[in-house]
C-alpha cells in the first residue's frame, strides 16, 4: 500500500460528502405530491396533537378535552405536545421539511397559508363538509386559499377580535368626550391631533409603528389594496398619500412616542404607565391591565374598533390543521372537530380571553353579558363578541400582503414619517416594491 492512499481516500470521501450534501439540499420538489389520506369510517389509532403555549395554564382544560374524546372513542389514543410560542413557526417549518408534522396541529393565519399552499394540509371541507355550518361564516371561509376553490384547510378554533381601548381620564383632559370614541381612521387622527396639542408632551395618543396599522387602516378608509384580479397592488392613491401625510404630521407634533416608530417601545408599558391614550386593540390586554396596572384599568374605557367605511372588522382565527397524509384521518378529523365544538370552545373562553369561532359557542349568553356596563373586562368581552358576529373577510390582511410585502411597505412609510422622504414618493415606492415581491412570488 502506498502512502498516498489515505489522502486519496480522504479526497474521495470529501467529494462524496459534498455530492451527498448537495443532493440533500432541498432541491427536490417539495411536498405538493403528498398523498391525501382517505376517510375509512373507523375512528381509531394513535394521533399526535400539537398546541401553541397552552401549558401549564391550560393543562387541565386541554387534558380534559382529550380525556373526553378518548372516552367517546376508546380506540383512539391522543398524544398531546405543547410547544412554546418562541420559535413555534420555525419548528413547524422544520417538521414540515422533515415530513414529521403532527396529525392535528394548531396553526395561525400565516402558518396555515404556507402549509396549505404547499399541499401539506388535508382539505377539511372534503373530509367533513357538513361541519361548515357549525362555525361563524367568516371563520370557516378564512381557511380557504386563493385559487383552490371551495377547499378549506383547517378547522377554525378560537378567535380574538379587534376592539378599541382608551384612557378615559386622558380623553377628558384633551377635551374629548369619552362617550364618543372615534369610528373612522380620519377621526382617529383628529382625536390624536387634539391629544398632542393638549398633552404638553406628558402623554401621547397612539403608537407610530406603521406595521401595526397597515394594511388595516387603508382597508378601513376604502383604499383598494389589490386589483380585482388580485394580481397587483393598487394602494397608491391620493387617500393613501393623505394617510402618510397625516402620520408624518402627527409624529412631528408629538402624537406618538418617538421610539414607537421602530417598534422598540412596549405599548403595554406605555399605556399601563398612563403615558398613552389608546391602548392595544385586544380584549386580552384589558385583562393584563387589570392585573398589572389596576389604577389605569379603572380609567380604561372599551368601545368597538375603528372600522371606517367598511363598517366591520376582519376575523383572525387560530385553527387546527390536519396533516394531509395522516395515517388516522378519521380520528384526526373527529378530534379537531371535538376540540373546536361549541361547548369545548365556550369552556375555553371562560378560562382565557378568547372567543369561539363556533356559532353555537358565540351565541352563549356569557358573550352578551355587559354587567353593569362599567367593568372594562366584561364590556370588552361583549363588545368583542358583537364585532365578531358581523366580522367579514374583506377586512382581513390579504394573503398577498406577506410579511415581506408588509416590511417593504413599512420601510418606505417610516422614511416618510421621519421626513426623510416625500409621502407621495413613499407610497409610490412602497407599491412598486410590493408589486415586485408579488410578481416574484407568482413566478415561482
Amino acid at each position: 500500500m502506498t502512502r498516498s492512499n489515505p489522502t486519496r481516500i480522504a479526497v474521495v470521501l470529501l467529494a462524496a460528502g459534498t455530492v451527498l450534501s448537495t443532493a440533500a439540499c432541498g432541491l427536490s420538489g417539495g411536498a405538493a405530491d403528498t398523498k391525501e389520506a382517505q376517510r375509512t369510517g373507523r375512528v381509531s389509532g394513535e394521533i399526535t396533537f400539537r398546541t401553541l403555549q397552552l401549558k401549564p395554564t391550560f393543562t387541565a382544560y386541554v387534558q380534559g378535552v382529550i380525556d373526553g374524546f378518548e372516552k367517546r372513542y376508546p380506540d383512539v389514543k391522543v398524544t398531546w405536545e405543547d410547544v412554546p410560542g418562541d420559535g413555534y413557526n420555525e419548528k413547524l417549518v422544520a417538521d414540515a421539511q422533515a415530513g414529521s408534522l403532527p396529525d392535528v396541529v394548531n396553526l395561525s393565519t400565516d402558518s396555515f397559508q404556507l402549509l396549505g399552499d404547499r399541499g401539506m394540509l388535508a382539505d377539511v371541507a372534503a373530509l367533513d363538509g357538513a361541519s361548515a355550518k357549525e362555525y361563524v361564516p367568516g371563520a370557516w371561509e378564512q381557511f380557504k386559499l386563493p385559487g383552490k376553490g371551495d377547499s378549506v384547510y383547517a378547522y377554525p378554533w378560537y378567535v380574538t377580535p379587534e376592539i378599541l381601548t382608551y384612557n378615559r381620564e386622558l380623553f377628558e383632559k384633551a377635551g374629548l368626550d369619552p362617550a364618543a370614541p372615534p369610528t373612522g381612521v380620519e377621526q382617529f387622527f383628529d382625536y390624536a391631533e387634539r391629544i398632542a396639542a393638549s398633552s404638553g408632551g406628558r402623554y401621547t395618543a397612539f403608537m407610530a409603528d406603521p406595521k401595526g396599522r397597515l394594511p388595516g387602516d387603508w382597508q378601513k378608509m376604502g383604499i383598494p389594496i389589490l386589483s380585482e384580479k388580485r394580481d397587483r397592488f393598487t394602494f397608491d392613491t391620493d387617500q393613501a398619500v393623505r394617510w402618510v401625510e397625516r402620520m408624518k404630521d402627527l409624529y412631528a407634533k408629538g402624537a406618538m412616542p418617538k421610539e414607537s416608530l421602530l417598534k422598540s417601545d412596549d405599548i403595554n408599558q406605555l399605556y399601563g404607565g398612563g403615558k398613552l391614550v389608546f391602548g392595544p386593540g385586544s380584549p386580552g390586554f384589558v385583562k393584563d391591565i387589570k392585573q398589572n396596572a389596576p389604577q389605569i384599568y379603572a380609567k380604561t374605557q372599551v368601545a368597538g374598533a375603528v372600522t371606517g367605511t367598511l363598517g366591520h372588522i376582519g376575523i383572525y382565527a387560530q385553527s387546527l390543521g390536519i396533516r394531509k397524509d395522516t395515517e388516522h384521518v378519521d380520528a384526526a378529523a373527529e378530534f379537531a372537530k371535538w376540540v373546536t365544538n361549541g361547548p369545548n370552545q365556550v369552556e375555553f373562553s371562560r378560562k382565557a380571553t378568547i372567543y369561539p369561532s363556533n356559532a353555537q359557542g358565540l351565541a352563549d349568553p356569557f358573550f352578551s353579558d355587559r354587567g353593569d356596563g362599567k367593568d372594562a373586562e366584561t364590556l370588552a368581552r361583549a363588545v368583542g363578541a358583537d364585532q365578531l358576529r358581523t366580522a367579514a373577510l374583506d377586512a382581513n390582511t390579504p394573503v398577498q400582503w406577506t410579511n415581506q410585502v408588509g416590511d417593504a411597505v413599512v420601510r418606505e412609510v417610516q422614511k416618510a414619517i421621519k421626513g426623510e422622504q416625500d409621502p407621495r414618493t413613499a407610497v409610490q415606492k412602497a407599491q412598486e416594491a410590493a408589486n415586485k415581491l408579488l410578481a416574484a412570488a407568482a413566478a415561482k
Partner: protein
Amino acid sequence: METGTGLPHRRWWIPYLFLAPGLAMVTLFSLWPFVNTVVLSLTDAQILRGGSFVGLDNYRRAFADPDFWVATGNSVLYLLVVVPCLVLLPLALAVLVQAKIPGIGFFRSAFYTPVIASAVVVGLIWQWVLRSDGLVNTVFQRLHLVSEPVPFLTDSAMLLVSAMIVTVWKGLGYYMVFYLAALGNVSATLHEAAAIDGAGPVRRFFSITVPQVKPMMLLVGTLSAISALRVFTEIYILGGESGGPGGGARTLPFLIRQVGLGFSGETGYASAVSILLFLLTLVFSLLGRRLSKGDEG
C-alpha cells in the same frame, strides 16, 4: 517505509479512527452547512419550497439591490469605526488597571461586567439612556444644549452610531483582559533601563509597551473586525426589527435575517448574501494576516 515503532504498517488508518468523532462533528456542523449554503445560494429555494438551480442569479440580484449596498456600507463603516476603538481603548484601559494600587480589582471587575451582561439587559439600559425622553436627552435639554431631543434611536445614522457605542462599551472589558495578559509579558527591566536613560512614561509606552503588545493588537483587530462584520444584536435591541427607519441602519447579518426568515423567506437569496458576507470577512481577515506577517518580517 518502515516507521521502526513496531506497529504494523497497514494500520495507517488508526489515527483516523481517533480523529473520526471530531471530524464527524466538524463535517456535520461546519462543513456540511457551509457546502449547503454555497449550493443553496445557486438556487431559488424558499422555506419549504425546494428550489431549482439558477446559477449566479442571486449574486447578480444582490449587486443590483440597493438594500444590499446600504447593508454592506453600514457593515464596513461599522468595522472602520469600531475596530480602531476596540484596538486602542482597551489597551489604554489595561494600562490604567494594571497599576498595583488598592481596590484596583474592583475596577477590573467593573470594566468586565458589560461582557457578561445579557443582550436584553444591555438593550434596556441603553434604550433608557438614549431614548428621546431618556437620560442623555433629558440632561442635554436641561442644560439647553439642544432644543429638540437628539434622535439617537430613530434616525438611521444616529442609530448606527448608538449601536457602535454599545459594541465598544461591551467590548472594552473583553479585550482589556487580552491586553492585561500581554502587558504581563512586557519586560520590566526594559522599562527600568529606559527610565534610567531618561525616557518618560509616554515615551516608554510608545517605544516599549506598544511594540511588545503589537501582536496582541493585531489579534484584537482581527477578532473585533470579524465580530463587527457580524453585528446584529445591538441594532436589533436598540432600533427594533426594521433596522432603523426605512431599514437604513441594517447591516449584512440584519439583511440576511430579514430576507431569509419567515414563511416567505428566500433561502437562496439569503444564502448568497451570506456567502458575500463570508467573502468580505475573509478579505478583512487576510488583510489582518498580511499586516501581522509584514510586522514579523
